[in-house]
Every structure is written in C-alpha cells, then in structure tokens.
C-alpha cells in the first residue's frame, strides 16, 4: 500500500491507495503544531490503516517553510570568499517598493558577525587562481564553535564552475567538527549568480537542524507504530526524495504541498489522455494555478520566499514548480478601498474567525459568504447551523451600502471581483506566456476550485474542465502518484554553433553519473532511472533564457539544428518574435531524473443506474453571472455513478465543496468518479 500525508496549515490530510485493488482511502485530522509529526500519527490512526501494510510513505510538510518564515531555524555561520562576506547583505540592491522612501530591505538570515571570509579564488572559467587557505577555515571553525553555531554554509565565488574548494572546505570542517551541519553551495545549486546561490546556502543551512530533527522524529515514530516500508519527502520540483537526501537539502521542500496538486493534475491528465492542462487550486486563503504542457509540469529556479509587491524576499535557487499564487481563496475578505472600489483579498479571515457563515466570530464578508448567498453553497452543507441573516447583513453593510447595491448584487459583485482576480492569474500563466487556453483542459480542485471553474472556463474559452474525485484532498492524492525526482542544473555558457557535441555530451555524461549515484543511494538501480534533458537557451546578448527539451542524448551534430529550431519556436511563443539570424547560446544544462515508478491503477466506480433522481438533494435558486437567478437542481456527488449526465444549470455537491455548472455547459461523471464539465456541443 502507498500512503501520502500532507501537513497543511489547518488539516493534515491522508490519502492511500491499495495497489492490489486500487482502493483509495482519504482522511483528515487537525494539524498539531509545534509537534507536527503527531498530526501524521493521528491521521494514520483515524484512517484505521495498518502501518505494517504500508510499503511506501510519502510526506509533504510545511515544517520547512514555517521554520523559515517564523525565523525558527538554527544558529548559522557562513563562509565566503575573502572580500565577499557582505554579498548576502547587499543582495541585489533592488527596491520593489519604488516610491516608499522608508522601505525595508530583507534582513539577512545570517548576521554579519557570523559571516567569515576565507582566502581562495576560482576564476569564471573554473581555474584555481588563489589556493584555498586552510588556516582561515580553521580559525572560522574555532570562532563558530565559540559562538555556538549549529550549522555552517559555504559559498565561494564561481564555485558553480568548480566546487573543489567548497568540497575541501566541507571535508576539513567535518574532520574538525563532525557534529556540525554543513551545506556547500554546490550541493544545492550549480547555477551562477552569487547572491542567489549564497542566499540558497544560507537558508538551507539555517533550516538543516530543524529538518533533521523533524525527519528523525517522524521516522522514529513511524517505526514505533510498526511501519517498515520506504519513506519519501515531497519536494518543490514535483518529485520525491529520501529522508536522508531531504536532510541535506531541506530548501528543496519549501513548496512541497502546493506542487503536489499540480503534479496530481498532470498524472490525472495522463490517465485520462489529456496532456495540456491548467491546474487550478482554490484553498482558504489563496488561489494557485500552473500550466502543464505536453504532460510536463514546468519548473523554474527563480523562486523567492516572502516576496511581495513591496518586499524583495529571499531567493532559493532550487527547482520549484512554476505556480502563480494570488491572495484569493474562500476566506478572502471583501472590502471597499479608499477610492470606493470593491476589492477581495488578499487579507483572509482564515480558519479563525473565519467567514461569517462559520459562526465563530467572523464579521467581515468573504467569498465563501457570497457563495452562500448566491446559492453556490448550501447552508445545509456546513458542519453547523448557519445564521443566514448575519451573513446577509455583513455583505450589505460592508459592500452593499457603500456601493449602493442590494444584497444579491453585492454578493455577486464579490464573486465577480474574486473571479476577475483569478482570471488575471490564469491569464498570467497562459495567454501572457503565449498559450491559448482554448487548447487546454482545466483541472479544478481545492475547496473553491470547483465553485469558480465553470465561470472562469467560460471567460477563457476553455472547453473542458475536470473536477477530480476527492477534489479537496487532491494535493495528497497527487503526492501518492509522485515518483523520485532529482534535478541537476549546470551553468556552462557556450554558443550552440561553436560547441563541439563531444563537450556537450561530456557534460550530460557527468550529470548522468551524478544522478545514477544518487539513485543508487536511494535504492533504485540505474537501469530503472528515466532521464529527460533540457537546455536553457537565449540569443547571444540576452540575459533571460527559454527552456528547450533536447531530443536525444548523446547528441549528434545534426541535433543542434533541431535544438536551435525548438529554441526559435519557444522564444516566439513566449515573446512574440524570433531573431532568425541571431546566434544562440546554451546557458544551463538541466537533467531531470525520475525513478521509473509504475503507478497504481485507479479503481473504477459503479455505473449510474436510473436518471439520478435518487441523488437529487433539492432544487434551489442560484445566481449566475450575467444571467441572474435560476432554479437549479442540486445533486449529491457521492450518490452518482459513472455515466451520469446533466445539463447546466446544475450544482453537484460534496462535503466541503460544490461544483457549479453554468447554463450552456454539461457535466458527466466518468468511470473514475471525476466530474467532466464541457461546453454544450463539445
């Protein structure tokens, strides 16, 4: 049996699949800070699954991102090349908060007195131009011991081209001080740009003690309840890694939860024969979306934590699934700005006080409240009685009166503004990057995804939507389907035309050997490993790159032309033009290695018998944008079999969510229990 557990802000989710019969179990229990592992044990217990029967345990956690944002990591020292200890503090000199002349620059995670310099120098070509001064290292170690440092990061200038000095430094520290945690920049990234690399090292070293104690605790406790299988951690790149590897590079886990849903969308698409997808996930506080092209989840290394419109944030140069996230979820608060415009989010009522409908102290109207007033959600589908008058009052008082709208129009206004924000985010990942949404299928999940997807699909001319079974624990489902994955990225700049294929193949060879070594450490034979090859390319003179997949490795001379053509196409798609006669160059080599997992088969649900009248809960008025109120039949999702079909307007309700289908759209239940919403005539 495979089991996935995902720790979120409020709930710890569990989903398991029995490979024998495809049976899926889903369970939720409360998250238990600060001892997060307890929540995992709780949810396993609640699920009544036997730990001894679990072969594979996959885990996603917010522990790492929490330790970073709450500044609860260990005391950390940094070692840099002489003359460069302040790189971490100077950062990139940028100021996103343009007109705020008392802006705040990110304060470094490692203060200046804990940043020590070592005489050494590597050139941009990777040659040693000044030997490593081991005395400097020894005195840094002595100093860090005096300062009670727990973890040391090492980042030297140009180490992306040659990491010999970093490795020697790490080995020396290890021999002098075996207990201390060590991160070299080359273990977390081999890309150029010293600030981003140093920041990645600083953050990684900072959370290493936390990651280590958390994962050790968790494995001990799992062992304690009789678990004997293999355990894996979900990473930000959409794949998994072993606990051991995760302890070395905890920054690779920062986005482990959110990416799982995107990855799940890709897998579900694969099962259903859909390769071009838009994953759309609406939770309590945010909406997230990501584009999947030809079955491939897009990955970037331009990630920053805590970045906002006004704050530069901290870069982590590790592969992260490319997700656009906005502050618009079910709990987002509607408000009127100073100029008299209606706004929704980014402030959220969260779990406490929550939307007014929760009746636990919330007084500010939220998207959830507006969905309730417009019939999208039913008061009967909440865990507790809902005071509809209170909800209506909150909407009228905070939105209706200032704008001169009645309760219905005010509630619809909230939904329209929230959906407009989501629409702009969806455009950002599609139209603005040169993709036509018409050619994509949307996978909508999270509590709010199914509620907003139909209206958004109409706006974007998306012809088909999939609302997966168990949409609200879909991220954990995605985790269940993930494979071991390691990304290797090397910066090595050379014009394509003048790069001998032998040299290119040597680079691939070297990276492949590294991957094989890693996989054999993880217990996967090299023969099972599946590699994909990409290069980041640009026109000579440009800075930013476009990712292009490489047809075969080892490369032959004629493949260079294919790569060049792919680059021209990708550039034109992304930026509307190509420079046909300009020379192109390779900047990064990117190898993605997967463990060749054979995914468990999904179980099919029983076919629908009859016309579905048994599953009908009620007929209630629902307000649709640009149409108004319509009497709308509402069905219970759990009582529908495969093949059930309805025409919009219709609402399909499930626990914690409902799928709203517009007039002119049809909805059908497929053999796995997914809802498929299509435009009439498709």
């Amino acid at each position, binding site marked *: 049996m495979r089991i996935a557990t995902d720790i979120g802000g409020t709930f710890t989710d569990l989903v398991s699949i029995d490979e024998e019969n495809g049976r899926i179990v889903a369970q939720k229990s409360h998250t238990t800070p600060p001892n997060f592992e307890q929540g995992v044990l709780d949810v396993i217990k609640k699920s009544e699954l036997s730990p001894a029967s679990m072969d594979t345990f996959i885990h996603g956690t917010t522990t790492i991102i929490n330790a970073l944002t709450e500044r609860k990591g260990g005391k950390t020292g940094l070692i840099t090349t002489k003359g*460069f200890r302040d790189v971490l503090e100077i950062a990139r000199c940028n100021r996103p908060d343009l007109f705020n002349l008392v802006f705040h620059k990110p304060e470094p995670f490692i203060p200046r007195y804990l940043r020590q310099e070592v005489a050494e120098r590597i050139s941009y070509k990777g040659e040693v131009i000044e030997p490593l001064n081991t005395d400097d290292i020894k005195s840094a170690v002595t100093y860090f011991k005096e300062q009670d440092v727990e973890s040391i990061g090492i980042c030297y200038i140009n180490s992306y081209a040659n990491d010999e000095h970093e490795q020697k430094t790490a080995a020396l520290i290890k021999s002098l001080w075996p207990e201390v945690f060590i991160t070299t920049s080359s273990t977390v990234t081999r890309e150029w740009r010293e600030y981003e690399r140093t920041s990645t090292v600083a953050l990684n070293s900072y959370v290493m003690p936390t990651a280590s104690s958390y994962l050790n605790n968790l494995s001990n406790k799992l062992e304690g309840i009789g678990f004997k299988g293999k355990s894996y951690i979900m990473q930000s790149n959409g794949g998994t890694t072993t606990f051991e590897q995760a302890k070395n590079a905890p920054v690779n886990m920062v986005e482990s939860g959110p990416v799982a849903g995107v990855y799940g969308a890709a897998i579900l698409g694969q099962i259903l024969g859909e390769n071009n997808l838009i994953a759309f996930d609406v939770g309590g506080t945010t909406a997230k979306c990501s584009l999947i092209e030809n079955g491939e989840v897009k990955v970037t290394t331009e990630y920053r934590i805590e970045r906002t419109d006004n704050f530069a944030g901290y870069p982590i140069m590790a592969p992260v699934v490319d997700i656009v996230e906005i502050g618009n979820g079910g709990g987002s608060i509607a408000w009127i700005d100073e100029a008299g415009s209606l706004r929704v989010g980014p402030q959220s009522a969260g779990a406490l006080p929550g939307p007014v409908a929760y009746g636990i102290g919330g007084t500010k109207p939220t998207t959830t409240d507006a969905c309730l007033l417009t019939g999208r959600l039913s008061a009967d589908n909440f865990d507790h009685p809902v005071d509809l008058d209170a909800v209506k009052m909150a909407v009228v008082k905070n939105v209706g009166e200032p704008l001169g709208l009645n309760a219905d129009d005010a509630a619809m206004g909230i939904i329209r503004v929230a959906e407009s924000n989501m629409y702009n985010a969806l455009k950002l990942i599609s139209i603005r990057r040169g993709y036509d949404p018409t050619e994509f299928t949307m996978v909508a999940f999270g509590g709010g995804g199914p509620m907003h997807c139909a209206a958004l699909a109409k706006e974007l001319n998306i012809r088909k939507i999939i609302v997966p079974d168990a949409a609200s624990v879909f991220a954990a489902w995605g985790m269940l389907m993930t494979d071991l994955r390691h990304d290797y990225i090397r910066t090595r700049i050379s014009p394509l035309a003048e790069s001998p294929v032998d040299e290119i193949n040597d680079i691939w060879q070297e990276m492949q050997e590294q991957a094989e070594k890693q996989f054999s450490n993880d217990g996967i034979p090299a023969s099972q490993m599946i590699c994909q090859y990409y290069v980041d390319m640009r026109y000579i003179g440009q800075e930013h790159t476009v990712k292009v997949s490489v047809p075969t490795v080892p490369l032959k001379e004629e493949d260079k032309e294919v790569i060049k053509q792919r680059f021209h196409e990708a550039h034109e798609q992304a930026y509307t033009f190509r420079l046909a006669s300009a020379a192109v160059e390779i900047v990064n080599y990117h190898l993605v290695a997967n463990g060749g997992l054979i995914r468990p088969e999904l179980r099919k649900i029983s076919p629908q018998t009859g016309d579905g009248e048994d599953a009908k809960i009620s007929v209630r008025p629902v307000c649709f944008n640009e149409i108004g109120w319509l009497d709308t039949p509402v069905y219970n999702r759990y009582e529908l079999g495969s093949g059930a079909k309805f025409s919009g307007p219709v609402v399909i309700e499930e626990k914690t969510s409902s799928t709203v289908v517009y007039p002119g759209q049809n909805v059908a239940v497929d053999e796995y229990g997914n809802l498929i919403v299509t435009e009439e005539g498709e």
Partner: protein
Amino acid sequence: MTKKIDSVTLDIVKDSLMAIGNEVFYSFARTSMSPIIYETLDYACGIADSEGRLLTQGNGACGFIGLISPMIQAVIDKFGKDNMKSGDVYLINDPYMGGGSHLSDIGMMMPVFYDGEIIAFLGNKAHWSDVGGMAAGSFTTDSTEVFQEGLRFSGVKLVDAGEICRPLLDMIKANVRFPDSAEGDMWGQIASLRTGSKRIIDLCAKYGHAVVRESMVRLLDQGEILSRKRLLEFPKGSWEAEEFMDDDGHGNPVLIKVKVTITDDEFIADYSGSSPQVVSPINTGYTSLCAGAKIAYMSIIDPELVVNDGVFRPLRIIAEPGSVLQCHAPAPTSCYFESMLYATDVLWRALAPVFPEHLGAGHMLSVCSVVLSGTHQDTGVPFLIVEPTGGGWGASCTKDGEVGQFCVGDGETYNVPVEMAETRYGIRVEEYSLHTDGAGAGTFRGGSGAVRIYRAMSDNQLFTASFGRNKYPAWGTDGGADGSYNYFEIIRANGTHEGPMGITARTVLNKNDIVRMVTCTGGGYGDPHKRDVNRVAWDVRNGYITPEQAKNDYGVDVDPITFEAVRR
C-alpha cells in the same frame, strides 16, 4: 442614451488595464539584449487614454515616473491623431521635448485602434546600451553639446502601419556601437507595444469600448480623489531647501533650490533661483525634473498608489527656462540624472521635518554610474559595462538606514552579479563589501555604503564614472550626524594612486590597474546619545562601527571581546 455601467464592471476592467501594464513591462525585460535593461530594469512602459493621459505605468526605475505621457503627447502634437494609422510606432528621445531625459533612453509610442478609432496609446522608454556619440555607452561626463551624445530623434515614425521603416533602422544600426543589441532591444520594445495593443483590443471586444473608456476615466478620477484627500490632511505652508551639486565639471558650484508650498488643493514645487544651465552634461530637461519631483510627491501622498496622471493633477512644478533644471538645446544632458536627483533631494530635504514617517535622512543620492568599455581578455570580444552602484540610505524616525541600495532614481533595479560580470566583461572583481565607515550616527543610524573593486584584465579599457555627492555628504536629520561621500580611486599596476575623485571621462585602464569604487553611508536620524545601548553593541559586534565610534559618537563603552555595553 447610455446605460449606466455598474462600478464592479468598471473596476474589473480597470484591474485588467493595470494587468496589461504589468504584462508589457515584464515581457520586455525578458527579451532585452542590454544588461542595463534586463538587470537594471532601466525602462518603463505605460498606457495612456486617447488624449494621452497616463493611466498606468510599470516602472523599473523611479526616474521614469511620468515620462511616458508627455512623450506620447509630444508625438500627438507633432503628427496629429488624424494622421496616425493602426500599427504605427513612433520613436522619440529628444531631451528638450516631452518625456525627454537623455538620448540613451529611447522612447517608443503606438496608437491603439478599436473600430477605426484611437482608444488608447502605449508607450515605453528604455535605456539602450549605446546610441552613438563621442563615447562608448553614449553617456559621458565631458560632453559639451547634445550632438556629442548620440542619435537624437525628435519624434519620427519607425513603423508605418506595421511595416518597419528600413532606411531608419539601417541608419540607427550604422551609428551605434552595438547594432545587434540595439536592434534586439528595438524589436523587444515594439513587441511589447504590440502585445499591449492586442490586449487592449481584446478588452474592448469583451466589454465594449464604452466600458473601457469609462473605466479609464474612473482610474484617473480615483487617482485624483485619493491624492486630493491626502492633500487635505497635510499640514499647510511653505518650506525651502537648497544644496550645491558638486560642481559643473570645471570647479564652479551649481545651486539647486526649491520652495515647496502645500495648500488645500495644490502641491507646488518651485525651483526658481537654481543655477543656469552649465557646459557639462548634468543639465536636465523639464519633464525629467518633473519626474524627480514626482518621486518625492508620491512618497508622501501614498507610495502604493497606481501611477497615473490623475494622481498628479494637484501637482505643479515650476522651473526657470534656461536653468540647469529646464535646459535648452543644445545643452548636454547625458548625466541629467545628477541634477534631477538633486531636485528630488532638495524637495525631500525640505519636507523631511514635516513628514518624518515618510522621509528619512539623506541618502547616497547619485546613480554613481560606471561606464567601462574594452576587450575581453579571453574571447577578444568588445564589452561594455553600464551600471549604477549601490550605496547607503538615510535613517528615519522608525529604523536604521538600509545598506547597499541603489539611489532613489533607480528602483526595481538589480546589480550585475560578480560571476556574470567576470564572464562577460574584461574584469575581475576583487571585492564587493559594505563600506562600514561608521558615519551617519543617530538614534537611528545611516545605512552603510558599498565598496566594489574592479581589476582590469586587458589593456586599453576606458573608464567613465559620475559619482555625485562627492563634495557634500548625505545629510543627517533631527540631530542625526551627516553620512559620508561617494568617490572612486584608481590604483595603477605599479602602485601609484589617482584620486579619490567623483568624476572622470574615458580614463585608460591597463591590465592589472584597479579601480576602487566607494559609496557613502547615509545620514543619521536623531541624537546618537539616545540610541539604544544594545543596538550600539550590536553595531560594534557586526563591525558597522568601531568601539571608538561607539564611545565618541554614541557615548557608549563597548567591550571589544564580550560586547558588553555601558552608556557613560
């Protein structure tokens, strides 16, 4: 009869317009061929309504604020809307016309047609690495006339109904030092205008042009409402400040002065009495002066407001024609940002005591621009560095000054990474660190400047730099001490020193010559003797100040080993 359009729809369209503004901004940076654009984001994109009024502007650099709409208006005035066709693109970089800064900033504008009528204009402006002229990089510190500074376009048609004007392109390419990069940036700018145009047309198709037009009006009106609301809350009165810029390049002081008056419905910045225009290229045209004043205005009105012409309606900026802040042709302007930034700084200084929570003490002020050209030692390929240098910012009533940041005229501007610089340029970076001179003492301390050291790796490199604030320090406020000075010095391979100095043009660097660039620490805020003792100890522990400075400036004894601190 027109149906009343509901406010929610107008807001949704308004948000879409702003999203388009963002999109055209970012798409351009990612295609650019010039580091000054893709790293430094020295460019801006904007959308204007059919009258040329700015609706929204994406800025990389603050100094471009509000330059887009005067540029669009200048082209409208010259050609007339009736003579424009769908697909036209116009080129403009004249420093003395609307939207002018220096010749290096190439402006482009495009009318957007819907149903045969102009519904909007798009404009962008970007710093090209080279536009010809006497010096590589086109901006230098010793030009005496605009004719030495490169190609000047006083509004010319570059694309006619979608067809590029080939002879003009050929002429540009024949007159600039990096023709491929210039053409790449040109197409990047055009592509970004075309993308924006397509999005606006889509928006009209979806909501109808009447809704789009009305939401444009709403956007401008809301900007005005908010700024007027703030103005009403402000203290009323007149405040003055003046400063000398270092000099005119020939040892003569240049005065910048302002009298700012706030009334219930106007904010007037009057720069009368500032020095006449000078022979060196530190003159600015009127629109760039306005940009400088608008930065300070935005910071106190509301830094988060959408930049549009509605916000600026209450603002009036006065300068004397022929002065250094409103120069006439053919005064050189390639380092226009020096006087523009002093214009921002005097306004900032005049208002700092009035708005202490928005305006702290003085900062490094100057772009501290560096232009270095030469040949790469390994590849033999010519290179050109055009970059700003980060420095210290002033403290304010709530916090210490920030360290190693670009000046106020920059913004979402990125430094060039050492590893990238060493690969591309014929230099090795010997040091990149904080300049911890301990200046700027105060209850809150000024932020440290930076030290950046370049070693030339080949012969015959040409170094040009303009480090303003070289003679007069960053000012402290409310009892805080002044900060320090920006400067650079050259250490020749044979050990001889040149400098420190603040300005040079095309100084030859040969292999193993070193240039050491140092930026100032910002001014302090408040009495240093009131600084928290633990903070003083922390400053010493981290090497921002010495134990002697703790004792002399702050009256605190800090043990250099244990960092225990006692106020005397």
